């Protein structure tokens, strides 16, 4: 393949495409463009990486019912995971949450295909998969975690959910919250 850097564009582009100052050559402009694009992508990737798995408190969250979710809620808390078939981190999250809810009483894990539940996806403003919502025993969304999360982050989210200001004032949460 032949790479023709100089003057190739100056002529063809003439007023139609990219313009550059006369003292900057076509190739220099392109190098700057490439570096800018890569820097921007690095910034975006780094931001995403830092966000991943961080759980945020949801104030005045939606109320979800077992009927809507298709499965019973957990007595202490319920993880609702939105997944899609084209999402490989979703598998890891499924494993993490499956392990956690399997090992502690009163926790439930419900995984939904976001595309098959577009009504819920729209209502809850789910933009990416995996997104995990943590529900209190009443089914109210109290925390939201987007992006892949580790076992530790999942475990940490549970007591947070139950002690958050929006958490349950229902005294009938039978098993006391075990500290980590």
């Amino acid at each position, binding site marked *: *393949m032949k*790479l*023709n*850097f100089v003057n*190739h*564009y100056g002529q*063809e*582009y003439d007023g*139609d*495409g*990219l313009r550059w100052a006369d003292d900057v050559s076509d*190739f220099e402009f*392109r*190098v700057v*463009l*490439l570096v800018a*694009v*890569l820097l*921007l*992508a*690095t910034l*975006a*990737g*780094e931001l*995403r*990486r830092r966000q991943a798995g961080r759980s945020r408190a949801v104030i005045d969250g939606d109320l979800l019912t077992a009927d809507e*979710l*298709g*499965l019973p809620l957990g007595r202490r808390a319920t993880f609702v995971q939105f*997944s*899609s*078939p*084209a*999402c*490989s981190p*979703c*598998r890891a999250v*499924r494993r993490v*949450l*499956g392990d956690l809810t399997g090992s502690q009483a009163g926790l439930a*894990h*419900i*995984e*939904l*295909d*976001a*595309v*098959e*539940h*577009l009504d819920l*996806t*729209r209502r809850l403003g*789910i*933009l*990416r*998969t995996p997104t995990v919502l943590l529900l209190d025993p009443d089914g109210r969304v109290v925390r939201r975690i987007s992006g892949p999360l580790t076992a530790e982050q999942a475990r940490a989210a549970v007591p947070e959910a139950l002690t958050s200001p929006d958490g349950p004032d229902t005294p009938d949460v039978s098993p006391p919250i075990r500290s980590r």
Partner: protein
Amino acid sequence: MSTASASASVPAGAAGIDPRGPRFGAALTTVVLAIALLTGSVWVLAGQALLFAAGSLLGVRRSPYGYLFTRLVRPRLRPPAELEDPAPPRFAQTVGLIVTGAGLIVAVAGVHSAVEVSAALALVAAFLNAAFGLCLGCELYLLLPRLGASPKTGRA
């Protein structure tokens, strides 16, 4: 209807691919797209569009980069810690094909800067995949049906 754990996407026994394969392919794709951006060459972009088409139609394992990975790279690596569903990276190839294909069509129609614009967009996606393991195409999978369209390509 609602789906319980484990039934939402891949069946448990499905054969997976080495997740380092798509990352390797994304790294090569990043290089090709960087060259397309540096040269503004329609031909380099067309070459990458063909590679995306191969990945989209044949699947990532039988695409040229997948083949290279299996033949040359994987034998030198330790076995993977876990396998990955091949559908998401394949869907990402389809998204790459749409972006570069649209760029080519617009460029051929006379707007030459479409080469740079589509190369830059695809470059961001390929770079994020190679460097961070983040799959932009896969995240679009949810946004498209939310807007009303229904992408069926990735489900194969």
